[in-house]
């Protein structure tokens, strides 16, 4: 055994100078072309230009991603080291630079003459490529999920379809997901803080798409929109090769900018050299904006909808005649009700639909708990009945109108200019909102009853030209999910920021934190009524003791009337120091176009001893 190894080794040693020479030669060629300045090389290294001209820093926060110890800041040194490492002895195997940096190798081969490189056996990469293949790449947008700070704005990932993906086979496709590597001990709020500060590392993960379906469609009950991309075969290969280079590589994870969606754009930039997707997101990368950027670059062919479990169930229930809906719940409680005369004699289609709705509803309810033998038995009875009636089920109908897809919503940022009259003052307001949507705004592309505002600044300019802060909403989230016979979700609101309050006869800027929880209902289609119990903590210099907690109530009515949405609200609060506030407000929003709206606001406040009335009109432009 030893002799052949020794022969092999001496052969290798003989070959090495040649390999080293070829590396030198390749580096001479690379220098002649200043190849380290090439956009493809910079993209493959995730380099970003520094503040000082000619300086670079990579977003990859991981020594394993670089072959030169200065590689993180020095694309030139990294290129030289890469070329040298490609010529290393082949028996490094999977650890060989050629095996780890397959996209770099592939690209450098097209740019340089790289003769006679050693040929390491890249077993891991071969195994990966045997599994992960694609004929189609799909950009996936799991929709807004208000119950989690990290998913409020939705999310994006890529899906790699192997072969013709249709009707189930995409369950086995691979999902490419960039996510923070989190510590399970961190709760949601802490996550948000840590995420803002870049306290997490993020990595790419490649896993089966059905797990994403289970996570988003089922566990979180989020609709998923899918946008097939028109990447060709070579572009898709480039993407997968680079993905391999990013295996287990850490990136600093920032909640707002260098997040999941941003990294997905970078992958697409590597796939299609020359396309610029990331430069539009210097500050924030809101997932739906990144979807629009990919569309804007002409990379999206189509879109499709994958409804959440709850969405499917709602549609099944809505399809039933009104007089049968009560039986959906009854059947779930007592499947033997199927034998009753009224259910025996109904048309076969209605009976099949009813059984299906009852089964799905029972399962949906069960999903919130652990397995219960009694519910399992009833579910099984309904499933048996469903199997017997299946032939009578009408075919599945189309589930969503592509005209309401999230990419068609109004722009994420908003500029507003307004004119106000408050008591005997008149002033103008100038507003900038960084994100995203208020209840009364054009709802197309957003879920009903969702308000997701982060970073809303409003300035006031009075008659003397003095500029002052009108309000600052740091966080302003409202989630109104209507309850009915079938669904009993909680509605809630969280708000924090700075606003103006009349206290003891003068106006003060106050800092406040509010939370509320309660219920909402849909009295009829297009309307939403809500009531929340609220708690507030306010820091107000108008009070003798500035920090005061308060408890209160808040109720309102939302009404959709085509281009106009009306929102009427009432609120009452009592502070620990005895101070009481009453509030009535009216907000009417008139949609002028997708990106423009007129907003009328009337706000009456009784802050004792005085009451005040403010009326304002605002022009809103979204972008």
């Amino acid at each position: 055994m030893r002799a052949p190894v020794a022969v092999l080794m001496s052969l290798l040693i003989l070959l090495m100078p040649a390999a080293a020479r070829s590396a030198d030669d390749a580096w001479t060629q690379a220098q002649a072309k200043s190849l380290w300045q090439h956009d493809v090389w910079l993209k493959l290294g995730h380099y970003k230009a520094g503040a000082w001209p000619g300086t670079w820093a990579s977003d990859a926060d991981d020594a394993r991603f670089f072959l030169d110890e200065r590689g993180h800041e020095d694309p030139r040194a990294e290129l030289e080291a890469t070329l040298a490492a490609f010529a290393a002895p082949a028996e490094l195997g999977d650890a060989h630079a050629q095996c780890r940096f397959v996209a770099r190798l592939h690209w450098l081969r097209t740019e340089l003459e790289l003769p006679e490189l050693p040929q390491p056996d890249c077993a891991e990469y071969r195994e990966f490529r045997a599994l992960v293949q694609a004929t189609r790449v799909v950009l996936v947008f799991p929709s807004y999920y208000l119950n989690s700070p990290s998913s409020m704005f939705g999310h994006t990932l890529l899906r790699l379809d192997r072969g013709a993906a249709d009707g189930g086979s995409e369950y086995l496709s691979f999902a490419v997901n960039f996510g923070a590597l989190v510590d399970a001990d961190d709760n949601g709020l802490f996550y948000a803080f840590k995420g803002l500060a870049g306290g997490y590392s993020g990595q790419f993960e490649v896993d089966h798409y059905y797990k994403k379906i289970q996570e988003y469609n089922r566990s979180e009950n989020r609709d998923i929109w899918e946008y097939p991309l028109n990447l060709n075969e070579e572009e898709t290969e480039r993407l997968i090769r680079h993905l391999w280079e990013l295996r287990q590589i850490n990136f600093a994870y920032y909640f707002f900018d260098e997040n999941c969606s941003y990294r997905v754009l970078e992958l697409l930039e590597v796939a299609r050299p020359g396309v610029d997707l990331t430069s539009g997101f210097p500050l924030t990368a809101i997932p739906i904006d990144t979807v629009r950027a990919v569309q804007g670059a002409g990379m999206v062919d189509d879109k499709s909808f994958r409804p959440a479990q709850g969405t499917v169930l709602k549609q099944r229930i809505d399809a039933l005649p009104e007089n049968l809906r009560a039986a959906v719940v009854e059947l779930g409680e007592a499947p033997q009700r199927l034998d009753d005369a009224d259910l025996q004699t109904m048309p076969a289609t209605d009976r099949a639909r009813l059984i299906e709705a009852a089964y799905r509803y029972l399962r949906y309810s069960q999903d919130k708990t652990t397995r219960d033998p009694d519910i399992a038995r009833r579910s099984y009875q309904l499933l048996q009945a469903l199997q017997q009636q299946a032939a009578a089920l009408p075919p599945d109908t189309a589930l969503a109108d592509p005209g309401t897809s999230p990419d068609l919503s109004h722009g994420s940022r908003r500029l507003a200019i307004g004119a106000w009259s408050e008591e005997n003052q008149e002033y103008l307001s100038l507003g900038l909102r960084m994100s995203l949507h208020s209840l009364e705004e054009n709802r197309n592309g957003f879920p009903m009853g969702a308000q997701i505002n982060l970073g809303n600044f409003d300035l006031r300019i009075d008659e003397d030209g003095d500029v002052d802060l009108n309000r600052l909403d740091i966080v302003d989230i409202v989630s109104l999910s209507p309850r009915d016979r079938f669904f009993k979700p909680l509605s809630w609101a969280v708000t924090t920021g700075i606003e103006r309050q009349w206290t003891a006869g003068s106006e003060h800027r106050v800092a406040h934190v509010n939370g509320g929880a309660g219920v909402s209902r849909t009295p009829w289609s297009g309307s939403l009524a809500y009531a929340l119990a609220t708690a507030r903590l306010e820091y107000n210099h108008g009070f003798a003791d500035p920090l005061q907690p308060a408890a209160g109530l808040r109720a309102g009515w939302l009404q959709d009337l085509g281009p106009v949405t009306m929102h009427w609200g009432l609120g009452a609060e009592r502070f620990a120091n005895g101070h009481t506030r009453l509030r009535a407000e009216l907000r009417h929003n008139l949609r002028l176009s997708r990106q423009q709206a007129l907003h009328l606001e009337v706000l009456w406040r009784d802050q004792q001893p005085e009451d005040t009335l403010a009326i304002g009109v605002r022009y809103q432009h979204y972008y």
Partner: protein
Amino acid sequence: MKKLMTGAVLLAVSSVAFAEAPGGPNCGWGNMLMKGKSGMGPHFLASTTNGTSGNATFGMTSGTNGCSVNGTLTYGGKAMVNAMLDEFSTDVAVGHGNALTAVAVAYGVAEEDREAFAALTHQNFAVLFPNESVTADEVVAQLETLMKADMQLSQYVI
């Protein structure tokens, strides 16, 4: 250490009935029908973070409920039945659906034979799912017996 403890505990419970589970020691083949949200722990974690927990999966190390599928080219019908038992049972009852197709694809059933696969499972619903406590491995055993006895589909099981 990144925490996956809740998930691990759940899996341990679900596989307790099987001394030697196929697919590896931590493999949750014992998934029972009508289970509801299986693996609630990791799902809950994922939902509050939008992130990955612990070692990020990268294709080849992916498993279902701890089941090793290393080295297999396709995902394996067994793993798919186990991973989506409830959805699969619903699709079998109705006679079509994404989970049913996914299981067929995972068994390598060619497109022209998928209709036969759907029909076979739908007609034999009572054999595959004799009661509400049937487990994934029992379903798989019955399914493969049915396929073996079927002229068109026997080629897909060894």
